[in-house]
């Protein structure tokens, strides 16, 4: 991979300013989209850790998202715990559940692992439907309270949006820290050649499991934010189609590129909404867009504005 010159400083600055300044001017529905894009960006960044860096295809990421979302939803509604305690609890519990995929990843890889991740996602969703004693089943969990900060509740979407932006920035910085560190490099090395990486002293098992645990934890955080934002959860929104959607965000954005994952979540979430005036045609066009981008932009959208690496031929 070309040594990664980070995205040109100007583009980063512009993006940061826009993220802060533009939303207040937006119509309610557009603001709603921005919040959702922020949440999905965090989710995509967490999946990028596994797919982009560790090179493992995971199609069950909605499972972690579900665990994080339900943990916060149930803690804040049934047990009256404040969001600021529910968030770390969600991160912790989801991170621990990361082991459920971390351990199999030691034994299988490629398409065997892909099927197991699909199985994981579907099992978690089915349990969220059937364990009514815990998750209220198909009735879902509703009226989830918004977090309270310095005394007032973040009821307005704009206030909640800034919370999401702050957390997204933190996750973005964390990912940048990782990509340049020995940890990030080791992950990418074991992606390219596990045997060689082991001979360099990389404890393959420890790195793979920590990758899943870390990725699951961040996905849990995104779930916690999602629950508090939409204030209603039900198993339908955490199916295989959501896992595929997040996977497409990472790949369309640019495998292994941090900026790419954010761009990907913007494209995957906003594009169908932009195409909405085409009514029922928009989803077919969206499928064509996926094929065209993969065909002509193997490095994903990230290759457009940053020097991110082209996908490894």
């Amino acid at each position, binding site marked *: 991979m070309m040594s990664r010159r980070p995205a040109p400083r100007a583009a980063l600055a512009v993006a940061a300013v826009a993220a802060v300044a533009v939303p207040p001017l937006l119509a309610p529905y557009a603001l709603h989209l921005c919040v959702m894009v922020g949440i999905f960006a965090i989710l995509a960044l967490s999946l990028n850790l596994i797919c982009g860096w560790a090179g493992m295809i995971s199609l069950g990421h909605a499972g972690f998202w579900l665990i994080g979302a339900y943990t916060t939803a149930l803690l804040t509604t049934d047990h009256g715990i404040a969001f600021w305690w529910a968030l770390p609890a969600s991160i912790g519990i989801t991170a621990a559940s990361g082991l459920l995929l971390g351990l199999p990843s030691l034994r299988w890889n490629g398409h065997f692992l892909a099927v197991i991740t699909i199985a994981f996602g579907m099992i978690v969703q089915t349990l969220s439907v059937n364990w009514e004693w815990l998750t209220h089943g198909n009735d*879902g969990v509703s009226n989830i309270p918004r977090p309270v900060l310095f005394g007032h509740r973040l009821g307005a979407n704009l206030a909640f949006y800034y919370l999401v932006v702050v957390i997204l920035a933190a996750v973005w910085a964390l990912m940048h820290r990782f990509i340049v560190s020995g940890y990030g490099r080791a992950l990418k090395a074991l992606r390219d050649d596990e045997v060689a990486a082991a001979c360099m002293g990389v404890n393959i098992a420890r790195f793979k499991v920590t990758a899943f645990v870390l990725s699951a934890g961040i996905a849990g955080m995104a779930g916690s934010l999602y629950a508090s934002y939409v204030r209603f959860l039900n198993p*339908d929104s955490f199916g295989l189609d959501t896992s595929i959607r997040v996977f497409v965000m990472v790949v369309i954005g640019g495998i292994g590129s941090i900026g790419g994952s954010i761009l990907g979540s913007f494209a995957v979430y906003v594009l169908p909404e932009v195409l909405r005036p085409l009514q029922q045609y928009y989803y077919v066009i969206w499928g064509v867009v996926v094929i065209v981008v993969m065909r002509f932009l193997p490095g994903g959208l990230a290759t457009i504005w940053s020097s991110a690496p082209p996908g490894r031929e």
Partner: protein
Amino acid sequence: MKRRQVLGGVAALTAVGYVGAAAGAEPIRIGLDAVLTGAGADIGERIRRAAQWAMDRINRNGGVQLPDGSRRPLELVAVDDQAKPDIGLNAIRRLVDDPTVVALLGPDWSSVTYPTLFVGEEAGIAQITSSVAQRITQAGMKHIFRARSTDADWMAALADYIVAEGHQQIGVTYANSEFGRSGRAAFVRALKERRNLAPAQELSYAVGDTDFTAIAGRLVQSGVPAVCNLGNEPEGALLIKTLRQLGFRGLFAFNSADSIFAKLAGPDAIGVVGSLSWVDTKSDAASQAFVGAYRAQFNETPIGHSAIYYDAINLLADAIARAGTDRGALLAALKSTDAWGGVQGNYHPSAPTGDMIHSCVVIRYNQQLVPEVVAVRD
């Protein structure tokens, strides 16, 4: 394949165009959330068509006359929830956030209606739904109206009919969904309260299941003379087909035995008993007039949802005429309306819970697959 969507769209456009020119006034917009793509899109399409047709008829004779004397046409803003709660949430938020939308129709699927109730309530907008799940009107929401009898009414009617036919042992099957489970709870309660009976067996299945051999096998093996299924049309049709294949000759009752089910089940639907809020073979004058006009317009027989949403638009038009287009005033006007006659029968919008109407029918499909009304309940 008739391109229904395109034709429907063209018809609607010409109508609005004609009216717009005449009335010249800015249209009053009413929001409709229905299932327009995916499973259940067939009913969603008929809902949109019935609501639009009701508006066209009102607009054709000059639209709604407001308290201040001005006449304005109605306009339907339809959004699609794909029968998914999270997509429904987005869709309803978009309608409620639009200040020009004065009232909200739908959603139809209980699994979308129940969780999104708080959006309409916080906006204080009148919402008329066709979902049957009990809990929708028990959550203490003041903005919700139900233009259809609930599954409690249906199940009471169905339970009475099954027991009247001399069946004590009844097997209950239900879809593991909001709609299915609410129907089952209502049916079991109706059996207990009215006949002091309990189901011989209760089996659940997943929405979207395709192979019903396992469930049908257990029912046939247990030898129950009557089966009551609570769920959607596709699964219901598959279940009765498999039951017939395994030699089940007993009574099959179903809470969604409408024309869509009859088309899917084909000959296996003969003898199937169902409870519906309304059916086109209902003999009263209002129903027959509606069926005649509907057939003339679309040369197709209307289903229960056609009557529900046709009534809902006319009820709203009547309230707008009295209270104007302010959401709060409109809601108050509806709440103060004690009785209003519609195709389905007489509505009571002032009912505290929002359950405006309790009339329903029990039908049985005869040899020609025509749903004969075998019992009526008001």
